[in-house]
């Protein structure tokens, strides 16, 4: 296929693809997202390939390796179309059986179905699984059915339709007006209205302008940008082309984190395929509008995700932020007007243009429209990526979608907003999740990390964790940020190691205030949030560390004591073997010998917890 030179040609091409695809034809999709990779989906794909080759014999059973479906906890995931039967935790050995029973005979393999955690009922269809049921997967949904390396798949589900509409029936100003009307807010952190940014960039003086997609995804514990870029790269690309048209830019960059090799590959393929079809490059679809995109890889620095630092990195400079007296929409990359948006923000654009702002604004709350993808992780049963309408409550996310807390433990807090965010206590579980509500309670939307914490998570330790992260990632340009994060981390170390005083708490608050006020970029500006929000909601836990030298969650190592309960000890000797410093003594009980219960020498103990992990009889107590 050569370059398409008009919207009619694109439609004809799309029709051709659709005609060749029988909607009733059986095909097997295997999730190839990174989560499923980690649980071995590759072997499953190979197994299916083999079976299909051996048994299908021209039967026309398709196999598609797709992007992330979101339900990473249960991977590798396999969905059989057209019935949409979901099989979870599939092993390579299961492939022949699935093929025989389901593909050929339409029967269900019960043992591979998802089982409802409370009712125990087996669920056949993907849509009926509670994890998916409350979600609204308008951005993320196509991930499960398209092969990211095939532009035909994206076209078959209506891809690049919005681009046609924008290029041929809307003026750039109209596109901007639509995005403004949809009140699309940036999904990368700040929640700044995208339409407004586009307008400012369009109106900025200058011939050459740039658009950039921020796929640096620095928030540790979030991976939705990765999954979008890996699983549906064309949706991001289409959004960028529409944005470039609206702004009047002819060059774009996708800035991807180097830890995401597959995302780099997939967006690269997508760019290549779009160019070949004339959807990217000179005179897109014969419209007279030209635009092309390059990939730029990050170097693994959190701060380089900040807009000015990101642009410095693309220019070949060190990724340090600069003061934004002049905004990047006026003077950004190479001092030219530049519009930067997050991956998910771009992916929303085709939808808004295609279905219209009136449709889009029906979803969400007053100030936050549309959906948001969260990476629901930590101490929750169904970890994975979830896309929900703005305004859904935390309770619905954690319990209905997330399936609650594992091991019957109690929810303690939900952390959102990454290192700039805060911890929301269990008492606020009915909070509707949108940009403004989260800010009100001292956290923020951020890019969409949502880390669930249970009673075995220590909040002082969490604050220390983030401060450690921030002190390492602070670029060091502002003294307040460089020193402030360091001092706060030191104080938190003191507290978690049993040397804290009550004065430390006041000092933390003061330091937090100075760091936030005196730093240039939002890294320093929001750095105290993890400390301030935990101090606000979990002050008692801090006090317990300080006054009683106790860590109630049993996390802070220096405050723990391990002890073997001699009456429970079976004298198996496993703990002594596991101990890396030979701090455990005793004698193994055998048929011949009586044995001596094991004991820990506190002087030698380094509190690594290996004995506790290794004991099968709960004979080791932690205090």
């Amino acid at each position, binding site marked *: 296929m050569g370059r398409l030179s008009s919207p009619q040609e694109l439609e004809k091409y799309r029709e051709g693809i659709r005609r060749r695809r029988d909607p009733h034809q059986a095909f097997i999709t295997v999730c190839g997202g990174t*989560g499923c990779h*980690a649980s071995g989906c590759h072997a499953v794909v190979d197994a299916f390939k083999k079976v299909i080759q051996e048994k299908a014999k021209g039967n026309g059973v398709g196999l598609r390796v797709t992007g992330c479906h979101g339900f990473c906890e249960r991977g590798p995931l396999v969905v059989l179309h057209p019935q949409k039967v979901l099989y979870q935790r599939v092993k390579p050995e299961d492939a022949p059986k699935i093929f025989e029973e389901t593909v050929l005979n339409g029967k269900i393999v019960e043992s591979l179905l998802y089982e409802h955690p409370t009712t125990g009922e087996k669920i056949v269809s993907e849509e009926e699984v509670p994890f998916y049921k409350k979600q609204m997967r308008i951005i993320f949904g196509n991930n499960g059915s398209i092969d990211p390396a095939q532009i035909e798949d994206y076209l078959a589900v209506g891809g690049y339709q919005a681009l046609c509409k924008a290029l041929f029936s809307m003026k750039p100003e109209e596109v901007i007006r639509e995005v403004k009307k949809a009140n699309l807010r940036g999904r990368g952190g700040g929640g700044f209205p995208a339409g407004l940014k586009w307008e400012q960039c369009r109106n900025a003086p200058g011939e050459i302008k740039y658009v950039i997609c921020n796929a640096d995804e620095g928030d540790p514990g979030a991976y939705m940008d990765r999954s979008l870029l890996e699983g549906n790269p064309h949706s991001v690309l289409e959004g960028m082309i529409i944005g470039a048209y609206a702004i009047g830019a002819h060059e774009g960059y996708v800035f991807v984190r180097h830890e995401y090799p597959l995302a780099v590959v997939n967006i690269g393929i997508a760019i290549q395929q779009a160019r070949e079809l004339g959807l990217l490059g000179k005179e897109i679809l014969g419209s007279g509008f030209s635009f092309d995109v390059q990939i730029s890889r990050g170097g693994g620095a959190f701060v380089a995700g900040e807009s000015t630092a990101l642009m410095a990195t693309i220019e070949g*400079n060190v990724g340090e932020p600069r003061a934004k007296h002049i905004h990047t929409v006026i003077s950004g990359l190479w001092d030219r007007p530049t519009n930067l948006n997050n991956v998910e923000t771009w992916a929303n654009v085709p939808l808004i243009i295609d279905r219209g702002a009136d449709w889009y604004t029906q979803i969400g709350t007053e100030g936050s429209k549309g959906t948001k993808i969260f*990476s629901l992780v930590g101490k929750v049963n169904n970890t994975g990526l979830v896309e929900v309408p703005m305004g859904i409550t935390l309770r619905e996310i954690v319990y209905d979608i997330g399936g609650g807390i594992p091991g019957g433990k109690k929810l303690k807090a939900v952390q959102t907003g990454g290192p700039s965010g805060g911890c929301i206590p269990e008492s606020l579980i009915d909070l509707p999740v949108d940009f403004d509500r989260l800010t009100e309670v001292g956290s923020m939307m951020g890019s969409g990390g949502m*880390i669930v914490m249970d009673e075995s998570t220590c909040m002082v330790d969490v604050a220390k964790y983030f401060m450690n992260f921030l002190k390492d990632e602070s*670029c060091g340009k502002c003294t307040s940020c460089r020193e402030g994060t360091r001092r706060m981390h030191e104080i938190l170390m003191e507290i978690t190691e049993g040397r804290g005083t009550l004065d430390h708490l006041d000092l933390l608050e003061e330091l937090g205030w100075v760091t936030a006020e005196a730093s240039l970029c939002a890294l320093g500006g929001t750095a105290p949030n993890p400390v301030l929000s935990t101090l606000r909601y979990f002050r008692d836990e801090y006090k317990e560390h300080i006054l009683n030298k106790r860590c109630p969650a049993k996390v802070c190592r220096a405050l723990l004591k391990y002890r073997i309960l001699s009456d429970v000890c079976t004298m198996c000797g496993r703990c002594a073997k596991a101990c890396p410093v030979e701090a455990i003594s005793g004698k193994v009980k055998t048929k011949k010998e009586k044995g001596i219960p094991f004991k820990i020498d506190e002087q030698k103990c380094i509190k690594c917890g290996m004995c506790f992990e290794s004991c099968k009889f709960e004979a080791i107590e932690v205090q």
Partner: protein
Amino acid sequence: MTQSEIEAIIERYGRKESSILSILQDIQTREKYLPREALEYVGEKLQIPLNKIYRIATFYRALSLMPRGRHEVCVCMGTACHVRGAQRVLDQLKLELGIAPGETTKDLNFTLETVNCLGVCAAGPVVAIDGQYFGKMNPTKVEGTLKQFRSDKKKEAADGKA
């Protein structure tokens, strides 16, 4: 790495100064670190002062100035992995390998690194060895996981111990 290989990398990015990070990343991928001679060569060819190249080379986590081991053990210290006990996995790895993050074992077999989220949070705590993910890690799994990557002598010793 020969000069002509470096030349090919520079060429691939169109001899642009702005591509310096990509060029360094490609050299890093090949050599697993940035040899001084390579940096000098790149600087000369692109007319970038060596101090600027060093500034970039030391700013980003993905770049290293020290030779690296044959196997890179990368422990995820992201939030999701942290709340599931990544610190204890890291501590155990430090004990097993006898090195701290950023260091390489004397026999040049392992380099220990930490990373802030590998994007497979559902499988946390995660350790990636040479890009292969090991999910649901805990301290007791460390020894067994490392075993297959040990150099031969160490492997025998570990087998004998087990």
